[in-house]
């Protein structure tokens, strides 16, 4: 980790347990890491849908018999957390009835899952007749049925509308596929070929894990492996606790909002009291919104995963990806709240809620470790999907997770054009979009002046314009946020610009879309998606004038913005050295999102 050091290294590390050979320990640690990453690569390579490959929206891992994660592969960080609950659900229903060759499947958020598109595969492994461990894979499916293609709609009001609910069931029984279940699945999803393709990829990943474990058992012996697994998790817990212990004790509060409940525009508060006490952390979300009408509700398992992520980013050391990390972090949310929902809550679009949880935890941690936490980023990518028929009457569905930018950091600017850190998704190339869909990308790039002003400014908004070139109107569905509650600045930095999504931008017919919407788009119409800009870090008046001049030269900032927000006078080319600051710049006193100059030419009717 390259985060600036906040504190000196611990005097003496607490060592490994006395019966542990440090060399074997590292060898087994490496071997487990390779194994779960090999499972991840197998999944990526064999997958059908772009979601698994380009968004890495999956998880691979090995768990012990208690359901603790011994190792998890690198993938979407938000998927690091929910697996133990899925295993617990399988055990609760099937304890005593698991046999070699069984593969369990589930996706029900109320019985081990997180939302319907994430389908978990869990395979118990046996050694010498006794159960030994679990290999697990979860993957986001391109469609699991329900009322809207892609199963991502944010305006569903019950889980029943969102797709097929699968309780923990045997997808394979003693190695034989459960034909009944497969047939039922095939009839209930829109693109069975992709679902079956991705299911095969998930099975291939389990097989890679199984083969790797057989090898390790042969190399090290089952009992030794188990002993070292326990130590691996203890080791991670020790590292984590050591780091937490260096944070000042206290109760740190932070509140952030979603701007919509998925149906109507109204603030949905995420309330956090984060207590650091000794070497443990309690994240208490009591006081957050009750579960909402739309599909933004989260299971407690996802709330935990988002919390773990944020805590992990402020640790001064890199820790292995295993369940030992979870132990020092307790997460509390009220049953029936938006962060621990109950039936019949809809949850397909709960990702947005998770982004806000991450923002809240980082906002609280910024008070405890101000040098380690960036200002808020774009607040989660905008997810949109187009679905309909092309000119040859072939059906198409195009889904993109679009963003983003990071907030300014204690020692440097935020990045523009980078994934949200809990996702690490890829964009979809313009040329690939156009060859596969009746869509034309008209514009793709940064929006000047949209990064929150600061000593270290926030990253700029990202914008993409699509023209629909199909034969008949198509369905357009979008999930955005940060329209009202903007990405926060820190240490005197300004908030980033809000998101803004427009139909027919720059024309007579220009109109703004609500942040969460399902609508139609007609042939020849253009829609613009624009994410929020990142928040700034530190007082804008302390920004290096040269950095302002560079931004102007790069066209990332207009001279007017430089003057209004930073009090710096630079000519348009940024070529000449910046002149002295105005003595009373508007920056700091004014809460406007930039001065709007950069937005002028891209259409800003309702900003």
């Amino acid at each position, binding site marked *: *980790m*390259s985060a*600036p050091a906040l504190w000196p290294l*611990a005097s003496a*590390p*607490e*060592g490994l347990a006395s019966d542990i050979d*440090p*060399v*074997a*320990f*590292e*060898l087994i640690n*490496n071997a487990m890491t*390779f194994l779960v*990453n*090999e499972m991840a*690569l*197998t999944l*990526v*390579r064999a997958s*059908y*849908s772009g979601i698994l490959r*380009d968004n*890495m929206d999956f998880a691979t891992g090995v768990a012990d018999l208690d359901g603790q994660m011994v190792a998890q592969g*690198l993938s979407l*960080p938000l998927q690091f957390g929910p697996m133990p609950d899925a295993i617990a659900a399988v055990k609760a229903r099937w304890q005593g009835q698991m046999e070699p060759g069984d593969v369990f499947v589930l996706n029900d958020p109320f019985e081990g899952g997180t939302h319907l598109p994430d389908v978990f595969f869990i395979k118990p492994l046996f050694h010498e007749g006794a159960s030994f461990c679990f290999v697990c894979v979860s993957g986001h499916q391109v469609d699991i049925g329900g009322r809207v293609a892609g199963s991502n709609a944010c305006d569903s009001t019950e889980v029943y509308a969102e797709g097929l609910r699968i309780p923990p069931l045997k997808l394979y029984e003693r190695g034989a596929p459960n034909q009944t279940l497969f047939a039922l699945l095939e009839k209930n999803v829109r693109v069975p*070929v*992709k679902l079956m393709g991705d299911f095969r990829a998930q099975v*291939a990943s389990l097989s*890679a894990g199984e083969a790797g474990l057989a*090898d390790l058992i*042969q190399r090290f012996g089952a009992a*030794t492996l188990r002993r070292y697994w326990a130590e691996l998790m203890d080791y*991670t817990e020790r*590292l984590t606790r050591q780091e937490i212990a260096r944070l000042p004790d206290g109760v740190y509060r932070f509140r952030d909002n979603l701007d919509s409940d998925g149906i109507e525009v109204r603030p949905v508060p995420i309330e956090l009291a984060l207590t650091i006490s000794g070497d443990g952390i309690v994240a208490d979300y009591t006081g957050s919104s009750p579960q909402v009408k739309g599909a933004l509700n989260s299971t407690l398992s996802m709330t935990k995963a988002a919390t773990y*992520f944020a805590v992990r*980013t402020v640790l001064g*050391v890199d820790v292995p990806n295993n369940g030992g990390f979870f132990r020092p972090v307790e997460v509390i949310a009220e049953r029936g709240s938006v962060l621990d929902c109950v039936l019949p809550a809809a949850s397909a679009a709960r990702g947005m809620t998770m982004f806000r949880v991450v923002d809240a935890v980082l906002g609280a941690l910024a008070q405890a470790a101000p040098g380690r936490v960036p200002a808020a980023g774009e607040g989660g990518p905008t997810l949109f999907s187009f679905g309909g028929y092309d000119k040859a009457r072939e059906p198409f569905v195009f889904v993109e997770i679009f963003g*983003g930018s990071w907030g300014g*950091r204690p020692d*440097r600017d935020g990045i523009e*054009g*980078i*994934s949200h*850190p809990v996702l690490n*998704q*890829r*964009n979809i*190339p313009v*040329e*690939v979009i156009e*060859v596969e869909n009746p869509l*034309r990308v008209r514009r*793709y*790039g*940064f929006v000047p002046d949209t990064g929150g002003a600061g000593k270290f400014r926030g990253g700029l908004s990202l914008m993409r314009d699509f023209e629909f070139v199909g034969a008949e109107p198509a369905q357009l569905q979008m999930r955005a946020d940060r329209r009202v509650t903007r990405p926060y600045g820190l240490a005197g930095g300004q908030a980033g610009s809000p998101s803004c999504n427009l139909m027919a931008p720059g024309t007579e017919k220009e109109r703004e879309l609500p942040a969460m919407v399902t609508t139609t788009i007609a042939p020849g119409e253009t829609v613009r998606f624009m994410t929020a800009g990142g928040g700034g870090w530190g007082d804008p008046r302390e920004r290096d004038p040269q950095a302002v001049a560079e931004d102007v030269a*790069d066209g*990332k900032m207009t001279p007017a913005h430089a003057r209004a927000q930073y009090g710096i006078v630079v000519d348009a080319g*940024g070529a000449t050295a910046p002149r002295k600051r105005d003595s009373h710049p508007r920056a700091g006193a004014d809460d406007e999102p930039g001065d709007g100059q950069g937005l002028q030419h891209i259409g800003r009717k309702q900003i």
Partner: protein
Amino acid sequence: MPATITAPSYRVGVDIGGTFTDVVVATSDGGRGVRKLLSTPPDFGRAVIAGVRAALADLGAEAGARSEVVHATTVVTNAILERKGARCAVITTEGFRDVLEIGRLRMPELFNLFYDKPPKLVPRRRVFEVRERMDHHGEVLVPLDQDSVEAAVEAVLAAGVDAVAVCLINSYANPAHERAVAETLAIRAPGLDVSVSSEILPRIGEYERTSTTVLNAYVRPAVRRYLDAMVAQLKAQDIDGPLYIMQCSGGLTSAERAAREPVTLVESGPAAGVLAGRELAQALGYANALTFDMGGTTAKAAIIEAGALALSGEYEVGGRIAAHTRLTGGGGFPIGFPVVDVAEVGAGGGSLAWIDAGGGLRVGPHSAGAQPGPACYAQGGEAPTVTDANVVLGYLNPEAIAGGEIAIRRDLAERVVMEQVARPLGIEPLAAAHGIHLIANSAMMGAIRAVSTQRGRDVRDFVLIAFGGSGPVHAVGLARAMGIGTVVVPAAPGLFSAVGLLATDLEFQQSRVLYADLGELGLDELNAVLGELHDEVWRMAAREEGQGVGYEIAAELRYWGQSYELTVTAPFGPQSDETVAELIARFERQHERTYGHRAMGERVILVALRVIARLRPAMAAGTARAVAGTPAAAWTTESGERRVYFGPETGSLATPVIARAELSAEAHWGPLLIEEYDSVTVVPPECSACLHPAGHIIVTLGAGSAAPASATQGRLE
């Protein structure tokens, strides 16, 4: 070329690295000479000439005879890593100025909010837009607006750049607008070096194409200077035959083409090593081999299967070295060409051993580098490295290595291992050193797995070819841990990449994006595209002197809905329903082998088609392929014996130390150390070594193929 030959003609293979220049000379009358010299940057030709002269002198030959020089160079990779390329501008389609800076959004490090993208090669202020637009069929949506072109060219001139990359949206489908922009540049700014994306990489995917084209523009002036100087120097010494250069795809190109498309020269050196491995495997009759090249800071692995190299379409240059970046990508600048798939990990002789905050023993990724180097070099290094551990274990000569050029202080190695590893962990120094050695091995296993098991291959079906200074020290232990039965240490393991160059063919290729359902694509269209591609590569190949042009088709295929291709090759020829069916069948077989399943009956999409032409350089036949007959360097050690530690179950054993020449075709059982000029081959107990008639060491593990269990179980008490 003169018709009469008075002196024997000769071919030279030269691998120019940052530190060393390795030279191998092969003459038409069967002579072979080798030389390892310090590189002479920026004037790299000096070392080449000195090496060639010395090697020829050894053979009693002289310059002035007919010659051919084949070389691999690090100049491109270094220019990118050191950010020493040209000042560049980019011209792109209006509305797409930020494609280059946005990239693919991905980062190689998770959980790090202080990550930064690699520094930009072209800042936004030097990216200029022109008004135009093609669609994906190559139809013009917006005609090229010449006023906007003039304005962009004006801006380029005002920016004071040396090179320009022209990268327009959908130019892979129709290059007309890019060509028109390039023409205007040629007229208005004749001194500028222009790289055009539809010429450099006519592939779908605007970011990767732009990145590749920008890299080309960025390194071209430097490569041109480098090649001009090299050619001039060689000529001045009467070494005036053709100069060929290794490309990342594993084939040679001419100096002329290299100057135009220098981006194809990245990873030139590592590709040569893999080529050498392929040639050696073939000579020894192994269909499947893994190459393992371990140097001071990194270890590299590659796969050879059924005699063929594996190519990767997702190479990134300038990124951090870490096994998991193969999963995430995003750490460097992508190159859209097929690149010999070499997995690299940050584990080498100089890698540092340390204890982390949780009490775990770790090795790398930090390295002591050449300076200060391992503690045992006594050049100021104060931290234990893998090399120090190898000295403590007795694997390396305790007095001197590299033919006596580097003095070794065993006491210093023992001290750092004792004080910084053994004592804090409460274990014996030998156990600590052995632990460092094993942990380095486990990191390197990551590289080998990345090219083998992670593609669904079973490593036990492969032999391991080990080279580089440290490769032979670690190879047998590595093979044991992975269940590999045979290790080959070639003659002159430190010069192996240079040897590979002499066995490489010239290669030319052209590709076309089709993105069509292979079942629906008409044979006429398919054959028309193949015909055009064939003519294009034929024109390239016809410019070179060479023999036996062979053509091959490479089809990039995927199932409908997938976002990942497999490349399937086939002999060149007119396609029929049968050959197309065979292509699909091959794809499905490869899919099943790689992913464990196939999807019978589903649509197969032909993403792109490539035609590759290969020809043997004119003189290669005359000098034969050199791999088989390369002599080991002359230096030999004194035979003797020392105590060597092979692990807790065996303990320290009195181990004979012999020279390669003392081996024979009979099995020599371990424990055994085979010491030579540029490396040491460590043969543990229960393994045997023999010498192949061509000078290669062949180590057989256990009774032929050691099961992983027997090899490692005893390690855990």
